[in-house]
């Protein structure tokens, strides 16, 4: 018999909705709320020792206390594994599930499985954790998919509890974490690669062994009309900054951005600016910063009236983009977007290296 614990938010514990979102961590012996459904799917193979619940807001506002309460409860029950969720497309709940799993796996060495919709923003955190002890199963967008989600969680939990070997994401159906493992293949890589290439040339389906991160489609923003009346700003990932790098950007993995004013300048003079970036040869950019921030061209278009008077935002935004992790760049993008909006900018020229 496998002993496990189910972690859910206040809503799925059956304790209340948004009005109970400030509820502290609570432990119920046996099953409560969604855990009943999970226990039904587990049958005789596993037993849920207790159901741990927490308020959606409480968790994020009192993270340290909440996490301690959860870890203590899990530790005291001697559980072999923990199930959190399913969180469907709820961002707060999804993030709690991912963070709880990560803490339990790291602190207690216990495997965890959670489940949520693939577009839940918390999937990004799950991928960033890339924790070999955590699995996240895809679910429907809403709780209409509860039965399927619990079935899948139960099946997966029993395998985890038995210590079965879990294969790669593509084969097992959990959401990929980007962890690569050494594996024995029947045929050498060169043969497999040529097979794939031939299939690709013949337009036949093939499966890559190195999947790239998939990217969401963002519907294009509306185009600008009356361009000369629109406020334009420049953002660049080239790493062009004032000489001496006053804000101490690193050549890689930066986590902050800056804005540099050029209101009084007609051009960026060589020797007064430099490029800080570890991903390309910065010699050209150092000699002529306009390759990364084309102020000379913008001023000339301004003089001709293509860009209206006062419509070039008088500062540019910069972060050296080298090795920026998608989640950090997303956050930086959001911060820059908010600042651009605040400043009334309507269109952006983004120079990327």
């Amino acid at each position, binding site marked *: 018999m496998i002993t496990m614990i189910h972690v859910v938010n206040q809503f799925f514990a059956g304790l209340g909705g948004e009005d109970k979102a400030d509820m502290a961590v609570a432990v119920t012996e046996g099953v409560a709320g969604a855990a009943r459904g999970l226990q039904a799917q587990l049958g005789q193979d596993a037993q849920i020792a207790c159901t741990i619940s927490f308020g959606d807001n409480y968790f994020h506002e009192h993270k340290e206390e909440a996490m301690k309460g959860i870890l203590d409860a899990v530790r005291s029950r001697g559980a072999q594994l923990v199930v959190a969720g399913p969180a469907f497309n709820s961002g707060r709940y999804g993030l709690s599930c991912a963070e709880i799993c990560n803490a339990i796996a790291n602190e207690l060495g216990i495997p965890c499985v959670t489940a949520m919709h693939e577009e839940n923003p918390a999937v990004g955190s799950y991928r960033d954790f890339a924790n070999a002890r955590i699995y996240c199963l895809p679910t429907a967008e809403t709780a209409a998919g509860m039965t399927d989600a619990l079935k899948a969680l139960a099946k997966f939990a029993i395998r985890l509890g038995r210590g079965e070997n879990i294969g790669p994401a593509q084969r097992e159906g959990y959401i990929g974490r980007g962890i690569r493992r050494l594996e024995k293949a029947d045929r050498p890589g060169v043969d497999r690669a040529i097979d794939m290439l031939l299939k690709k040339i013949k337009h036949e389906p093939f499966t890559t062994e190195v999947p790239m991160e998939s990217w969401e489609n*963002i519907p294009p923003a509306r185009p600008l009309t009356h361009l000369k009346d629109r406020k334009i700003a420049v*953002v660049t990932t080239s790493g062009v900054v004032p000489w001496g790098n006053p804000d101490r950007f690193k050549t890689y993995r930066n986590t902050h951005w800056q804005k540099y004013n050029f209101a009084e300048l007609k051009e960026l003079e060589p020797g007064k600016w430099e490029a800080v970036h570890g991903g390309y040869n910065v*010699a050209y950019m150092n000699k002529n910063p306009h*390759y990364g921030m*084309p102020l000379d061209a913008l001023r000339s278009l301004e003089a001709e009236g293509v860009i209206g008077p006062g419509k070039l935002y008088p500062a540019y935004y910069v972060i050296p983009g080298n090795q920026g992790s998608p989640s950090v760049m997303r956050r*930086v993008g959001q911060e820059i977007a908010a600042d651009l909006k605040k400043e009334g900018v309507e269109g952006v020229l*983004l120079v*990327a*290296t």
Partner: protein
Amino acid sequence: MSKELEKAGLPVAIVSAMYPVAEQVRANRIVKGVSIPHPCGDPSLPPELDARLRREIVQTALKALESEVTGPTVFSPSMAASG
């Protein structure tokens, strides 16, 4: 980066020499840059022509901002501007 800005409703023209990557990550208005270490211009050209090319690239980006697109679209600056 370009996607977070577009999510906020700001049209973005991304100048990048790695335009296939920009397409792959589903940026919407993509302008072909010259090369990775110098997207806006070409140091092998005499300074005047280099500046003209840069102006052409920026102008293409502004045109891209004015263009209706439905998905990743690549805009090519006329390199004839470089002479």
